[in-house]
């Protein structure tokens, strides 16, 4: 058994962008494991990689000190060719042995399916691990992918995310000779920029983290996170405050400092007059501060900054951060006031200068389309008895929805689009219905985010998303692969989520047509082909499928069955899904589904319907009792099921249909559909087709995968 050792590699860099470190570490782990296992140096995935702003560290405990020897068999010429009649090696055998680098005496005979051949065993002596490391590590480091790379010496020099300045590479306590980006590996790491020693010798893997810790570097993100979290908690507790939770900001600050500490600063409470959303965004976006709340939940005039020092004994750092924040807030107030020197609606003309997409025109045109669509949605809902639906509010909110795009505030904080518009509308006296709708209309940005809180907001959000889908897909911008620059998948998902969560009566196809009409009314540049409506529809349904499966937890075949029976009204589709799921476990259901599948096959086999279809089933052509029985049972079941279906009682309707099972089974037992009598055959096909059509309006049972349900 070869001896193992511990291995460590530290790539010392100038500050790596905080948001990229964790992902690069994950990737580097996979890369190293690939190299180590293909070289036979490790047996299982056992590389640990973690990072800090100035270093990426890989540790592998129990790596073999020497690559194992490997043995393989090489087959030579047939034995009959290799040895002559006197059993002496021929020229062929001799040259085979020579080529493999072994004496002829080591050549032996093997029996294969094709006969006897000569063969030789070739042993490759394993190389020392150091030699392999020196070879693969430079390649492994270069394989890490970054959003963008740079060079720092010459143009043909190494490319990386930031300059590499030192390398520590240890195997069993000894440094491994290797070079990456013209930097020779050694045993010297570096401490904290200001608090630690410039050179920190690392003698073994076990002492690595401790040696750095003594020099004010917490190399492991787990340790940094723990320190930050405990200081956030203790500082806020001491002042009777709470941290405004922000997991994304936490992930960032963990990688922004090598020795993080938290300080509490304050600001003039006059700034609390500015909306909370703006204050929080200023603090987190530019300054990476956590906002703070008082016990009653309101924003407190304080912030928490994570600094790259052990402490701030004289309060100098706090004073500095406070001064910067004051200036930032002053800037936000400047925008808040200067943006509102005119009213939100006064920004409308400027939208004509902002391009949405070259073929889809400006934002002014987009707003025009959104207004048409938002009105359309509100009209539909009102007509269907939803009293709160207000066409006027939907129109007004859509009209003002994009004005904030040309304000200074959104220019400075693009992530506040919509929110800023809503806040301005509120402070300028628009009714709540309208300002809340503007505020919410980008929602939901993802599967987890909330939908707009009021109906007008839903109308504007749906209008925005539908316009994006209709416009972009018509302009040929259907997303491919992972590329979706206009966020169409997210738009479709948001649309589905709003409709389903708010249970809104929406005919998807009509809504798409309304979108197409709106598009035609504002742009002459684009000729929308009728078949594009189907593409848009399918694109949305694809997202709906996803929501029904992943979010609502329905089985894939249930979703397929229900959508095959109709997908224009998504809320109705979910109601049918619920009924289907409830009835699925009953004893008749899945066997009936199997029969329906059989019926479908028979009809498909029969060829084009016009060749055999009768205008109606003719009872006089029945010649088997079970045919007649099925017809009668189906007729009455259909009457009952149709009534239930109209009343929205899908479960009862499905129950009735499921009860057809004995009659259907009996039919298939007694009757051969393809009778020799052509009239009888056509009549039977027509009966089955009627059955399939009438009973597939809630769910298409032939889509159900029997015995595979969850």
């Amino acid at each position, binding site marked *: 058994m070869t001896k193992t050792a511990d291995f460590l590699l530290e790539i010392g860099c100038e*500050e790596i962008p905080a948001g990229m470190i964790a992902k690069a570490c994950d990737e580097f782990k996979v890369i190293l494991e690939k190299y180590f296992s293909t070289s036979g140096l490790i047996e299982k995935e056992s590389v640990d990689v973690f990072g800090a702003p100035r270093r990426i560290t890989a540790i592998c405990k129990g790596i073999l000190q020497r690559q194992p020897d490997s043995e393989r068999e090489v087959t030579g010429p047939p034995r009959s060719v290799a040895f002559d009649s006197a059993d002496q090696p021929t020229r062929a055998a001799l040259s085979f042995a020579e080529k493999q680098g072994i004496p002829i005496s080591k050549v032996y005979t093997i029996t294969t399916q094709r006969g006897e051949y000569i063969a030789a065993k070739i042993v490759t002596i394993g190389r020392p691990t150091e030699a392999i490391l020196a070879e693969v590590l430079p390649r492994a480091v270069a394989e890490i992918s970054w959003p963008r790379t740079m060079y720092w010496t010459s143009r043909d020099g190494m490319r990386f995310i*930031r300059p590499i300045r030192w390398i520590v590479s240890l195997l069993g306590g000894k440094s491994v000779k290797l070079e990456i980006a013209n930097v020779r590996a050694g045993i010297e790491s570096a401490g904290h920029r200001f608090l630690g020693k410039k050179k920190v010798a690392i003698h073994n893997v076990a002492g690595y983290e401790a040696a750095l810790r003594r020099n004010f570097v917490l190399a492991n993100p787990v340790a940094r996170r723990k320190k930050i979290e405990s200081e956030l908690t203790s500082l806020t507790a001491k002042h009777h405050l709470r941290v405004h939770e922000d997991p994304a900001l936490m992930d960032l600050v963990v990688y*922004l400092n090598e020795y993080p500490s938290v300080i509490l600063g304050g600001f003039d409470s006059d700034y609390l007059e500015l909306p909370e959303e703006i204050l929080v965004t200023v603090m987190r976006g530019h300054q990476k501060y956590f906002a703070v709340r008082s016990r009653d939940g309101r924003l407190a005039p304080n912030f928490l900054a994570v600094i790259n020092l052990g402490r*701030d004994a004289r309060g100098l750092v706090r004073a*500095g951060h406070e001064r910067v924040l004051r200036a930032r807030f002053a800037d936000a107030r400047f925008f808040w006031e200067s943006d509102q020197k005119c009213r939100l609606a006064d920004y409308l003309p400027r939208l004509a200068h902002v*391009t949405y997409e070259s073929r889809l025109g400006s934002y002014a045109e987009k707003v025009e389309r959104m207004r048409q669509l938002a009105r359309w949605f509100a009209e539909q809902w009102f007509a269907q008895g939803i009293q709160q639906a207000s066409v006027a509010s939907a129109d007004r909110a859509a009209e003002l929805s994009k004005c904030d795009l040309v304000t200074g505030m959104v220019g400075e904080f693009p992530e506040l689009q919509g929110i800023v518009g809503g806040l301005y509308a509120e402070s300028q006296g628009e009714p709540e219905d309208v300002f809340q709708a503007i505020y919410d209309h980008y929602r939901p940005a993802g599967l987890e985010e909330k939908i707009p809180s009021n109906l007008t907001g839903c109308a504007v959000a749906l209008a925005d998303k539908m316009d994006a889908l209709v416009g972009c897909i018509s302009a040929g911008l259907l997303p491919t692969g992972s590329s979706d620059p206009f966020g169409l998948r997210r738009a479709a998902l948001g649309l589905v989520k709003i409709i389903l969560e708010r249970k809104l009566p929406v005919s998807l196809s009509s809504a798409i047509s309304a979108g197409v009409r709106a598009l035609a009314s504002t742009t002459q540049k684009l000729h929308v082909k009728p078949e594009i409506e189907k593409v848009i529809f399918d694109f949305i349904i694809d997202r709906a499928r996803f929501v029904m499966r992943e979010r609502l937890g329905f089985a894939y075949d249930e979703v397929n069955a229900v959508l095959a029976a109709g997908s224009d009204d998504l809320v109705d589709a979910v109601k049918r899904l619920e009924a289907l799921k409830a009835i699925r476990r009953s004893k008749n259901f899945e066997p009936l589904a199997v029969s329906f599948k059989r019926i479908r096959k028979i009809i498909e086999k029969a060829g084009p319907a016009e060749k055999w279809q009768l205008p109606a089933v003719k009872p006089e052509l029945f010649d088997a009792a079970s045919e007649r029985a099925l017809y009668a049972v189906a007729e009455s079941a259909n009457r009952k099921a149709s009534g239930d279906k109209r009343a929205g009682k899908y479960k009862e309707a499905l129950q009735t249909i499921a009860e057809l099972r004995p009659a259907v089974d009996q039919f298939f037992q007694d009757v051969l559909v393809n009778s020799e009598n052509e009239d009888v055959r056509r009549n039977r096909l027509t009966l089955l087709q009627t059955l399939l059509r009438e009973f597939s309006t809630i769910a298409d049972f032939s889509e159900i995968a029997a015995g595979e349900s969850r």
Partner: protein
Amino acid sequence: MHPETFLRVLGPDPYKVCYVQPCRRPADGRYGENPNRLYKHTQLQVILKPAPENIQDLYLASLKAIGIDLTLHDIRFEEDNWEAPTLGAWGMGWQVLLDGLEITQFTYFQQSGGIDLDPASVELTFGLERIAAFLQNVESIFEIQWTPERSYGQVRLAEEEQFSSYSFEFADVDSTRQMFDLTEKEALRLVSGYPRKQPELKRRYPVLAAYDLCLKSSHLFNLLDARGAISTTERAALIDRIRKIACRVAYCYLDQTTNPNSTSEDQESE
């Protein structure tokens, strides 16, 4: 972007320079009301070509040298890749924050005038007003004691106020556009007439004047932008027009300095 930066980073010759550069950014004007933002601020610009290995240490030593105790303050290198799209120039680096205040842009230049730099230069731009306010421990840039007698505000406030109003309110869009067109035309005339194949005319050919005009058009563009007169599509188109000039200037400059006597027959790859 000063020619000592834009042009000197081109080509292989080592070069080190630092100089004080007033920078005008029309959209950053705040009528003198913001304590940290200015229409016109002053930078100490440093170019080091090639980039020294210990450049970060040199930089930090420079902060120490002006009296900043690095162990008492929170200094951080935060990702910030610098780009001047109108000039085809960009690089990767950081903004350096001092207790949360951005005091320096630190950039490894990768391209200037659309040309890959070889070797890479490093550029440091120190924001002098912010550093001075920090060192003097004053709340606002305008309170800086600029000379023993006068504060920064006394010297500069009027300029901030007036140029902010000019950029945001007064600048006439049509006239500014005309000036832009005219400047561009003159710059194009110069770069188009560059006598690449006539060594005897090269030396005195005003490539530097063409660059000057290029900068002027870049400023006029910024002015139109601050005025809110440019749509997103037009924006891209205007940036492209200026970049074309900048790239041709860079090309001419490289030819002029590295092949003063050649007719450039062998490298016609403009």
